């Protein structure tokens, strides 16, 4: 191979962004088209540095906007390259039109989405409003709770997305600043082992195959559009989750690190639990352990795979629980939170007797403290004891001024 290998220590001190960039380097991506946006900028910046230093044989395409960034990625992927990029917040919003092109064209692009609030008011800090915005765009979505997982899930994302039965683009989410800029020890794989895991890229129906010319992104109107969408939905609902589990198992065999579509913590005998995503999962786990010392049977469910939604795994994880809190880190703007709705959907028609309440927290980088979670677990315990939800269904955690509660 014409590029240099990088010697890594067994454990490197990386933040989530740098971890993602190393995974992209090790996957030997052909093309990155990117437009910088906080807090995801260091991912593509590091990729560009690796490229300049001779660690990658690829192309870095500087474009004039995020819309062009994803468009460039789509073109490169349609041409037959392994492609990835990164974005956040307004950048994702500008990309959103092209995200549907990528998934409809079944191009296995990997997008690192460093979750950040959407303006207005302008805010560079983390929440999940960008992740929520594009949840129906047909991309597979993983959620990393820490830098280690940002590294691992990137490698996993390529392998799932590029499988010839799947051929769907994948997003790896991580929390802006909380994960993207917090350095932690990350267990690494050597360049050879990581590349061996991801595997050589075998494009399908690429434009550079001159003997089999194809038209990409065709017009279908009412004749075929519905069938295309049905097929895409079918593959997400039936094929992707088994593939993810298979790749998770392969990854565990290689590294000993085990991932699940739904990450359960102390859930075997839990009476009360919170369901959340991103860096909050780790905080909730700590608080759950402390609550257990005080006699509350507390557990945590973290959503590792956001799309396709692991309906059955969620229902299984929440079986036997008495009170559940769904924590949404995005302003629901006139509805119950997405997580609240989706947990409710996953539990509907099961024989659960669980009480479900929704909490909105952490918008625009507002902290979710351990004290918040202690109060929340106590409230859940009160619900469990009373056998009914004792508060309004939707509450806001840590917002200034008078308490906000609805429904």
């Amino acid at each position, binding site marked *: 191979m014409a590029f240099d290998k990088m010697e890594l220590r067994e454990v490197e001190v990386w933040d989530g962004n740098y971890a993602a960039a190393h995974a992209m380097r090790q996957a030997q991506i052909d093309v990155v088209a990117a437009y910088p946006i906080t807090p995801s900028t260091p991912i593509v910046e590091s990729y560009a540095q690796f490229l300049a230093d001779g660690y990658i044989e690829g192309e870095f395409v500087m474009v004039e906007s995020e819309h062009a960034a994803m468009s460039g990625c789509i073109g490169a992927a349609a041409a037959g390259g392994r492609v990835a990029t990164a974005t956040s917040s307004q950048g994702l919003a500008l990309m959103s039109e092209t995200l549907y092109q990528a998934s409809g064209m*079944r191009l296995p692009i990997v997008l690192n989405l460093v979750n950040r609030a959407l303006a207005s008011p302008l805010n560079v800090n983390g929440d999940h409003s960008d992740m929520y915005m594009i949840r129906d765009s047909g991309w597979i979505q993983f959620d990393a709770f820490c830098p280690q997982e940002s590294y691992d899930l990137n490698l996993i994302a390529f392998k799932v997305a590029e499988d010839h039965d799947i051929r769907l683009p994948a997003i790896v989410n991580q929390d802006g600043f909380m994960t993207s800029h917090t350095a932690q020890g990350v267990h690494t794989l050597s360049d050879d082992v990581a590349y061996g895991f991801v595997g050589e890229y075998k494009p399908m129906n690429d434009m550079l195959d001159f003997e089999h010319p194809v038209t990409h992104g065709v017009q279908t109107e009412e*004749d075929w559009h519905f069938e295309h969408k049905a097929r895409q939905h079918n593959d997400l609902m039936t094929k992707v989750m088994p593939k993810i589990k298979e790749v998770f198992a392969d990854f565990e065999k290689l590294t000993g690190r085990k991932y699940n579509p739904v990450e359960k913590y102390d859930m075997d005998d839990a009476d009360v639990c919170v369901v959340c995503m991103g860096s909050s999962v780790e905080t909730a786990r700590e608080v759950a352990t402390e609550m257990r010392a005080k006699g509350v049977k507390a557990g945590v469910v973290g959503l590792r795979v956001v799309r396709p939604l692991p309906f059955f795994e969620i229902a299984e994880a929440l079986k036997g629980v008495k009170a559940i809190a769904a924590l949404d880190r995005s302003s629901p703007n006139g509805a119950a939170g997405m997580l609240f709705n989706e947990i409710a959907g996953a539990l509907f028609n099961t024989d659960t007797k669980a009480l479900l309440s929704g909490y909105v927290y952490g918008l625009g980088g507002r902290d979710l403290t351990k004290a918040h979670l202690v109060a929340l677990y106590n409230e859940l315990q009160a619900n469990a004891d009373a056998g009914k939800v004792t508060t309004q269904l939707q509450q806001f955690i840590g917002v200034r001024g008078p308490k906000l509660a609805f429904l």
Partner: protein
Amino acid sequence: MAKKGWDEFEIGAMLRTFNGKIDDIAGTPQRDRDYSENSSYTASVADWRLIKPIFNKDYCIDCQFCWVYCPDVSIISRDKKLIGVDMDHCKGCGVCVEVCPTNPKSLLMFPEQADEESEIANWPKKDEKEA
């Protein structure tokens, strides 16, 4: 509409232009190419057109400008000789007329229902340069 199910066609909003492999695409005339049923070459889109180009070979110098510029590859040329317009694919945009350099032009736009023979018989005269 063909009776294909949602799970029967090729995924990826993608169409194959040819049935199977193709080599020497440049050297194979369109009529001899094995276009697939899905290729737009076999589909008529003429009903999009409101006005149509009419070709008058009396003035044509076979410069191929119209062939190069037509966005729908609808100018038919054989051995660098202009033959006419492929009326199954022409959308009536008028680009070919715009780029035609002869005086008078060898291609002009007419209403869709215009009769080709009578329009050619009444072709406009040479434009005199203004003094």
